[in-house]
Structures are given as structure tokens and as C-alpha cells.
């Protein structure tokens, strides 16, 4: 004999519980947390290298997620900002990893904490880390069709950075089409077309970041 049992349990409920703990822990310390997500090579670390020195009014720190190496944490420390590197053979960061990493930054006590997620345009979007703000970084070189092909990350983001706009002409990408594609799947997000390399468009993004608070 079998018995049918209704459950309606979220598959990621363990992660959701850790995320809720993180959110309360961050809020108690007044740490504003931004989860930075993108495919690999979209330019998250370079964006941070250019953004962090412009956030003079904030005390920043960064949690870096990568499968291997502490190259990214070293790059962040090179611009004078505290960084903790997570190395994990996973396609995304989860809330438990972030909770442990955050505790290594208690002495720094940042009022603005960036989490640079593992480079992947799909999986990180499914995992709440307890952040206050979600940002997708996308590079013009990836092509204007990708936001609609991989919509989940975009539609959950508070802001979308379109990086490497200086490369668009070399990749036969129309910035107009790309913007339209981003707006289609993230209709409420603040959108920042910019180039970390040339500095074009960086100011509006930095202003948005500087104004983020716990919510």
C-alpha cells in the first residue's frame, strides 16, 4: 500500500534558511550587501577594481567566489580593499558559504559588502545569499540575444550593468538591440551601460552603488 502526502516544500529550503539568517545578521550590523552575478569574463572584478576606489564615503569589503585561485581577491586587495576568497567546485555560491565567509570580515565591519559570485549566467540566480541588492553584469561582447535566452538572472536583478560597451562595434553588437533585450526581461532594473576600461558611464553606476542601503 502507498500513501500520497502533499508537501509543497521549496527544494532549496535549506539554502533559503541560511539566506534568511544571513539577511538578519547583515541587517543587525548595518552591512549593505550586493550580490554581483554574471557569466564568466563579463568583467565583474574589473568593474569592482574601478568602482571601489570611487566609493570614498563607504567602508567596503568583497567576498570573491571562484572555482580555483585567489587571483580575484588579490586584485581587490591591490586597490586597498579587504577581500575574502571562497574556492569551491560549484557552479554558484550558496548562502552557507557566504555566511561563513562574512564572519571572516567582522574585524573589517564593512558598511558595503560586495559578493562576487561564481561566473555563470544561470545557476547563481537560483540561490538567495541573504543580499539586499542583486546586480547582473553583462558584457556587450556576449551578444544582444543572451538576456532573453538566460532571463532568470536579469529578471531578478535590481540593476543591470552592460559592461565593455567600447567593444560593441568590434563584435557586431548593436547597443540599441542589447538595451532593448535587457529591458524586455528586466523591466524594473536600473540599467548602466558602461566601460570599466575607458571609464565611460561609470559615474552613474558608482552613484547608484554609493546610495545603496540595507532594506
Amino acid at each position: 500500500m502507498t500513501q500520497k502526502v502533499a508537501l509543497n516544500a521549496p527544494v532549496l529550503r535549506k539554502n533559503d534558511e541560511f539566506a534568511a539568517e544571513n539577511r538578519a545578521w547583515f541587517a543587525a550590523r548595518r552591512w549593505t550587501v550586493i550580490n554581483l552575478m554574471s557569466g564568466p569574463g563579463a568583467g565583474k572584478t574589473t568593474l569592482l577594481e574601478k568602482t571601489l576606489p570611487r566609493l570614498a564615503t563607504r567602508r567596503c569589503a568583497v567576498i570573491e567566489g571562484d572555482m580555483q585561485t585567489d587571483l580575484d581577491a588579490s586584485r581587490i586587495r591591490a586597490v586597498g580593499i579587504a577581500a575574502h576568497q571562497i574556492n569551491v567546485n560549484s557552479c554558484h555560491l550558496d548562502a552557507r558559504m557566504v555566511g561563513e565567509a562574512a564572519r571572516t570580515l567582522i574585524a573589517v565591519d564593512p558598511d558595503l559588502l560586495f559578493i562576487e559570485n561564481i561566473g555563470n549566467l544561470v545557476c547563481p540566480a537560483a540561490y538567495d545569499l541573504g543580499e539586499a541588492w542583486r546586480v547582473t553584469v553583462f558584457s556587450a561582447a556576449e551578444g544582444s540575444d543572451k538576456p532573453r535566452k538566460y532571463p532568470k538572472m536579469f529578471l531578478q536583478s535590481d540593476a543591470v550593468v552592460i559592461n565593455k560597451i567600447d567593444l560593441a562595434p568590434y563584435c557586431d553588437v548593436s547597443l540599441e538591440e542589447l538595451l532593448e533585450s535587457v529591458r524586455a526581461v528586466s523591466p524594473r532594473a536600473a540599467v548602466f551601460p558602461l566601460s570599466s576600461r575607458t571609464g565611460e558611464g561609470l559615474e552613474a553606476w558608482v552613484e547608484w552603488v554609493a546610495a545603496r542601503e540595507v532594506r
Partner: protein
Amino acid sequence: MHETGIAAEILDIAEREAARRGAAGIAAVTVRVGDLSGVVAEALSFAFEALCAGTAAAGARLHVERVAVRARCPHCRRESQPGADLVLWCPDCGQPLDVIAGQELQVESLELREAV
């Protein structure tokens, strides 16, 4: 993507519930997977089957119910199924749409073998 990790979470939820209810085993698991969840049903079933071997869920069937994307306009309240091009703007009033279905990833129900 991470279907093996998702399958492990599903099995864990099912095993805990089966143990809590003193069931003899798990015959079937039904999950709801939204079209926006990024989860591939075939990969999930494959991983689930492999992970179930040697557990209380050995041989259990995994039913995957897909949930289509649905959106609602907060202004005119019209519900729609955004097409394959996934434009999340209301065609009538030009307002951003709220996604109200399609992001699900849930264990909906279990079929448990009763202890004799």
C-alpha cells in the same frame, strides 16, 4: 547546471518526510519545475535515479510537472503568457509585468510505502 545538487536536495526532503512518518519506503516523488528555474527535467531525473540507489527511495519514480511562465500587469491586472521572446511589458498599458509563475522549484508531493 546543478541538477545533481537539486536532486540531492529533493531526495533529502523526501527521506526526511518518509522517516518522520515511519514509512517503509518512497515509491514516487512529484516536483514542480518552472520554465524559468533553469532546471533540465531529463538531467534531474537521471541524477535522481542515480542518487536513489541504496536509499529508502530506491526505484522511486520522479514526476516532473513543468510550470509555464505567466505574468500579470499590476496596472490593468491582465494575465498573460509571455511568448518565446519573453517581453515582460504589458502590451496594453506599457507597464512592467510581474512574473507570477514559472520560477517554481518545489517538492509537491510524495507517494510513500506504508510499513506493514
